C-alpha cells in the first residue's frame, strides 16, 4: 500500500521542471483543440441563416412586355422584390440622352442601362437605392418626380427617365437586373 501524503496542496512540489513544461503544453493543446471545435460549431450555426437552397435556386421571372404602351410601366416581381418595366416615349428617350452626365451622381448612359435595339425598354428594380422603399411613378397617375422618372416618397429621391438618381439621398441609379429578351416581346429576368 502506498503511504504517501500527496495532497492537492503539495502538487507543485512533485512536478519537475520538465513536467511543468509538458503539462503546460498539453493543457494549451487541449484547450486549443476545444477552441477549434467551438469555432467549427459556429460555422454551421452562422451559415444556417443564409438563404436556403430553395431561395437560392435561381428563380427566373418572365415578363410579357408586348402590352406596354409608350409612357406606361408595369410592375412585376423578381426575387420577391418589385421590378419596373417601362416603355419610354421618344421624348423621354431624348430627355434621357440629353441630360448632362457630368452632373450625375452615378453617370450612366441610357444605352448602358438598356439592351441594344430596345433602348426604349427600361427594366429596373423597383427598389430605391437609398433605403429600399418602392419609388412611385410606375403606376398610372403616380408622382414621377422632378425628372419625370421615378420618385421615392420616403426621403425624396428623384430618378430621371433612365432611372438614374438626379436629386435626393439615394447613392446610385436604380439597379438594372440581369435580363435578356427571349423574343421581341418577352424578357426573362435572372
Amino acid at each position, binding site marked *: 500500500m502506498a*503511504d*504517501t501524503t*500527496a495532497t492537492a496542496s503539495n502538487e507543485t512540489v512533485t512536478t519537475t521542471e520538465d513536467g511543468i513544461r*509538458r503539462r503546460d503544453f498539453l493543457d494549451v*493543446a*487541449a484547450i486549443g483543440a*476545444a477552441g477549434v471545435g467551438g469555432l*467549427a460549431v459556429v460555422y454551421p450555426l452562422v451559415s444556417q441563416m443564409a438563404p436556403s437552397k430553395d431561395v437560392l*435556386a435561381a428563380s427566373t421571372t418572365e415578363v410579357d412586355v408586348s402590352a406596354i404602351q409608350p409612357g406606361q410601366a408595369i410592375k412585376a416581381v423578381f426575387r420577391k422584390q418589385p421590378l419596373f418595366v417601362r416603355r419610354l416615349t421618344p421624348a423621354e428617350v431624348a430627355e434621357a440622352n440629353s441630360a448632362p452626365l457630368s452632373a450625375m451622381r452615378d453617370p450612366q448612359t441610357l444605352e448602358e442601362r438598356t439592351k441594344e435595339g430596345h433602348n426604349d425598354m427600361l427594366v429596373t428594380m423597383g427598389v430605391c437605392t437609398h433605403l429600399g422603399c418602392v419609388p412611385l411613378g410606375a403606376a398610372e397617375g403616380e408622382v414621377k418626380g422632378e425628372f419625370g422618372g421615378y420618385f421615392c416618397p420616403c426621403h425624396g429621391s428623384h430618378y430621371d427617365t433612365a432611372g438614374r438618381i438626379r436629386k435626393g439621398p439615394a447613392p446610385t441609379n436604380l439597379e438594372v437586373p440581369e435580363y435578356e429578351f427571349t423574343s421581341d416581346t418577352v424578357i426573362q429576368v435572372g
Partner: protein
Amino acid sequence: MTKLLSVRLVAILVGLGFAFVALFAFVIGAYNAATEEAQGHLPYAKPVDVDYSFDGPFGTWDKAQLQRGLKVYSEVCAACHSLKFVAFRNLEDLGYSEGQVKAFAASKQVPGIDPQTGEANMRPGLPTDYFPSPYPNAVAAAAANGNAIPPDLSLITKARGDGTNYVASLLQGYQEPSAELLAEHPEAAPSPGLHHNIYFPNLNLAMAPPLTTAGQVTYDDGTEATVKQMSEDVAAFLTWTAEPTLVKRKQTGWPVLIFLLFATILAYMSKKQIWAAVKPRKD
C-alpha cells in the same frame, strides 16, 4: 421519528397495493394466455439485404443507378405516386446538367395559373417546381385506387424499417399464396382488389405488381432492365429522394469524429498529467 415511520408505513402500503394490482393483472393475463388460443402473426418475409453503393460509413451515390431509378419512377411509379418533396432542381445531384434538368422539368406538366384569366391551368415545369402529383387531391387519389391512397414516395425508404431493402423486395415479392400458408392462415387469401406479396406485413396490398416484365423500362445506359435491376434501381433512387444529404452527412462525419478523437486523446493526456500530482504513489 413517528412521523417518518408513518411516511414509510404509507409507502409500504402503497407499494404493496400497486404490486398487488399489477400481479393480479398478471395472473388474469396468464390465465387467459393459458386458456385462449394465441393469435399468431401472419408470416411475412424480411426484406432481402442488397449491397448498395451508399451503404456503410464510406458510401457514395452511384449516379448511374440513381438516374436509372429516376427513369423507373418516372415511367412506372409516377402514374400513381407523388414525390412532393423533390424539386426538379434537385436532379442536378444525380449528375444531370442544368440544361438537362430544365428540359426534364419542361417535359412535365405542373399546375399553374393562366396570367391572362387567372384560371388554373397546366404549364411546363421549371427547375424550381416540385414533382407534380398524379392526382389533384387525396379524394381523387382514393377514388382512383379503390380507396387505397398511393403514398407519397419522397420519404418512403425512411418511413419503412430497412426501407431501401423493403422497397426493392416488395417490388419483387408478388406471388401466389402458398398452399401451406392458406392451410394455416386462411385469412391470408387475398380478397378482391388485393395482391399477395410476401414482404407486406399483412401479406395483401392494394398495389398491383408494378414491375412485371424485363425491359419494361428501357435504360439509356444499356443496363439490362430485369425486374430485380429495376426494383433495386428505384429503391436506390428513393433512398436519395428520402435523404439527398445522406452522402454529405457521412462525409462530414469523418472529419468531425477524427477531430474529436484527437481532442479526446489530448484531453485524456492533459487530465492524466493534472491528476498525477494527487494520485497515490506506489513506493
